[in-house]
């Protein structure tokens, strides 16, 4: 039962100065075992803050990040599940399900975590799970004209089942949703 925080697109300090207070209250150290950041943290201090929440932080380079030595994409394994992470600015059209599924097939992962759109999404497509945690700070994005709602995702991984909790800050209140994904074993699949 591993709790993994998926967070990204904070853009601190360039677009937003800090995480929402209510989110910060939720993110207490000790509960979360791993953090996967989809990129655009943008700041050393913010990265250090993430490290105080959990010891194990995986991060990939986004287009506005200041750390040059972060990888562009990463694959993390939890038991039978393979989780792939990349920022998403490499994928065109941005946020397109089919293009993302091409990437997922290339990386051979069951779950693909991307960002860049600043919008929360959780789609199960062709047996794979695509999660976009959105922007944790609600930072401005060029792609969507509507207001960005701050959000992040917490995944509870147990074997082949992932229960995804989405935390969104809507009208000043934190709302939580739950989604379940189960990895299926296709009989036609070549292992």
């Amino acid at each position: 039962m591993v709790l993994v925080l998926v967070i990204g697109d904070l853009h601190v300090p360039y677009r937003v100065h800090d995480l929402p207070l209510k989110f910060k209250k939720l993110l207490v150290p000790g509960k979360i075992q791993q953090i996967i950041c989809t990129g655009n943290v943008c700041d050393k201090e913010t990265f250090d803050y993430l490290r105080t929440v959990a010891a194990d932080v995986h991060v990939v380079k986004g287009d506005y990040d200041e750390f040059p030595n972060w990888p562009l994409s990463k694959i993390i394994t939890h038991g039978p599940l393979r989780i792939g992470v990349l920022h998403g600015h490499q994928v065109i059209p941005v946020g397109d399900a089919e293009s993302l599924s091409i990437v997922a097939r290339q990386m051979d992962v069951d779950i693909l975590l991307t960002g860049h759109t600043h919008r929360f999404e959780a789609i199960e497509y062709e047996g794979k799970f695509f999660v976009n945690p959105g922007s944790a700070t609600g930072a401005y994005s060029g792609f969507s004209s509507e207001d960005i709602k701050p959000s992040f995702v917490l995944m509870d991984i147990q074997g082949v089942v992932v229960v995804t909790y989405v935390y969104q800050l809507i009208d000043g209140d934190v709302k939580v949703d739950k989604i379940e994904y189960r990895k299926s074993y296709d009989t036609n699949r070549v292992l």
Partner: protein
Amino acid sequence: MDYKERLAQFEDILSIKNIVTEPTIDLYKFRHLCFRGIPDNPGIRQLSWKILLGYLPPDKRKWQSVLEEQRSTYYSFVRDLLADPSEEELNNPNVSSDDHPLNSSPSSKWAEYFADNSILEQIDKDVRRTLPDLAFFQLPVPHSPLSPLSPKLEAINRMNGARSPSILETLDINDDSTSISNYSDSILTTPPELDAEVTALEAQLAIISQPSLQFTNGNFNKNFSCMYSPNPFPLDLYNNNPSSPPLQPAVTPIPTRRSIFKRVQHLNMDFNIRGNSANTRPCSPATSCKSDGSINHDDDGEVDLHWEAIERILFIYAKLNPGVGYVQGMNEILGPIYYTMANDSDEEGKAHAEADSFFVFTLLMSYIRDHFVRSLDMDEATGIGYTMKKLNRRLKTYAPDLWRDLEIKSLYPTYYSFRWLTVMLTQEFALPDVIRLWDSILSDRDDDCESGGFEFLLDFCCAMLLCVKDELLAGSFSDNIKLLQNYPIQDPASVLRKAYSLRELRLLAKLNDEEDDELDENSLTNSKGEDFIYYSSSDTKFYNTRQHTNNNNNHLLRAQEVKVKGLAMLRKVQGVVSGRTLLNNSTTSRSSTTYLRPNSTFSRSNILSKTTNNTTKTTLNNISTAGGNRFLSLSTNNTNKTNITNGMNGFANRLSNAWKKNITYTT
């Protein structure tokens, strides 16, 4: 009473053969018997401890039902309290709840889960280090078909995944328990296609063995094979009617039993203690994941280690007793209990060792729980502070010189006795000795005392101090501390003897309506010759008791009821002390000595030392005069006895006089 006699008595009391003639155990007599030590014969100690602490009632007819009930209660605890909130969510997908992992409200299951985790981490750290010298705690719990905490054989086989010669060869008929753990460890498996055959074979075995099943210690592997039989056969432990109901309603393994270990796995990742932990094994889809995607408990087949069982017990105790929680030291107390229960020769007892240990531990903790509650540390009437003060007062009674010396050095009991008292001496002596000491300690429990005090424990601690008295008096503060924290006498036999004599003195004092341990304000604060004041302030008590004695009836009754108890003890004390038999009313001069050390305060010796040859006269004086002259020493010669025997002599004589007083009333 020699050893064989005692053994016979134990077997007589504990056996269930005479369940019709003598269904109830006389607890008083039993306690008295246990006090001298419980024989090491198989099965006796486990039953005795269970009876002493109240787990098993004195009525033998109720044992079976009590055991069943309690054990199933424990297993339901395991099932319920160890569950993960995440698994629960998965198992009830239709139940919508607002709970989420970051929920910090106290009603949230997740919040509770994380709070428990901190307790669990603490327990885990302590338990791994429990009694590290003994290999026992690192060994696996032997497999048993009776216990729902034992993994099914198929699961073990799946885990280990290697071939076996043949099932029949490994089922060694004449073997003892060790073979079974070999059985599970030793790479025994059946490839899936043979599973059906295996079960058929074993079913046949079950049928063969069933009618002839008489439970004896060596044959429990028959029970083993019967695990696969279609009906759970009635395990007939007591050679009686075969129609007795099955002992175990369900022997299905509890899936959550190992969940707590997964929770703290991260603590010991570096060491990789459990080599085949779920995270490190690569899971191929065929074995670990079923096609419907249900969660597979990878460690269904993993056998528990003994210390893991202890961790479970402590965790459940902490969850059920949030007032005390878990305090470091509880693992030390549970250690000997679990060790004793797990080494039961009785198959059923061994299978349910964990459940029984839990309840025995809970009962024991209910008496000493106050020692672990931090808020009661400073309390006047309960808590460890109170017990240490009590110990100090007792020391003062038995050896005021030593007491005074320690006070002068500011060597408060907190420095040495804290560990002795909270973990009940488990850290001072080796485990076999601790177990023997606990026989005595557990049997001398004072039911009247509100704190449920283990009086003998205090006596023993005093004895420990007295045995190293000379070194203590000679050494400095730091030497003393070093000495007491690494107690030099490793063999407790001599200390035990001294403790017995101290206890007898104390009991006689109690018979005499005198409470040595009462908190006396005057005695503690008055600086002028404390001992003297102590005694004189007990005058008021003496007056009270005199009124009491004037009420003959009460005294008579009391004398009657304690006569049986006290007489034997008194005789023994007299025998020990003076080498002469009691109850000869011709009290010729005994070679008793002054109560005090020669260099005590001069006023004391002047006032109190009297040399009389005829002790009867003095006794009559004692009875008639109401003054606090009770402690007039009846001394003649100063022999070369040590001071403690001086004290004992004085006590013994004084008390024998009082005892005679009782006797004269009753005749």
